[in-house]
């Protein structure tokens, strides 16, 4: 299944990409598994998304957790803690 992935702010700059489509096996239907796929790229991806790093994930524009489920064509956003206001 295809998942649209967006990056914002510092993470967008570190990865050098703002948006991509990632094809995941249907069995990898959880945020944590998408992150494993990204970390497997190594480099900035492995560092910035390592366990303990401070980042947030939203699924379909709602804040999500590591165990949030994913479905085909979901929009996942990965970004630093927010600093508006």
């Amino acid at each position, binding site marked *: 299944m295809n998942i649209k992935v967006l990056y*914002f702010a*510092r993470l967008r700059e570190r990865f050098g990409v703002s948006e991509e489509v990632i094809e995941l096996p249907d069995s990898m239907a959880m945020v944590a598994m998408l992150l494993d796929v990204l970390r497997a790229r190594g480099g900035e991806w492995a560092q910035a998304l390592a366990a303990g790093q401070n980042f947030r994930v939203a699924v379909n*524009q*709602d*804040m999500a957790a590591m165990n949030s489920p994913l479905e085909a064509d979901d929009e996942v956003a990965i970004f630093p803690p*927010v600093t*508006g206001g």
Partner: protein
Amino acid sequence: MKISVQEADFDVGAEISALRAGNPQIGAVASFIGLVRDLNDGSNVAAMTLEHYPAMTHKALTAIVAESETRWALLGCTVIHRVGALFPTDQIVLVAVASSHRADAFAACEFIMDYLKTQAPFWKKEQTPDGERWVESRNSDEAAAGRWG
């Protein structure tokens, strides 16, 4: 409820007037304005850029206001958050809440700001004499949001 994410500045007096208009049951309006400071974390700030996640910001702010409406008896709420290039003394955000009584208005206004600071997808990048830097999130903001249970 009025929610707006915009580049343009806003007129606090006009927004509060519109929030109150036509409802003589409103006895209290609490409001908050966030402004760009020229000094942050020890560095001079010449300008800042506010990035956001367009598809999510309006949805997140709407959810925060809806949550406040379940907790307090409100008679209206306006939230405006600017994005793009901003300079010291510029207005960043307005939260204005109308209610019959002041306790509800104050609590909801502070709740919305605390949640906005931790849940709404905006990010500030500052221009300082040492170059650009992303503003770091504050533990105090997480603590402020956490106290509402």
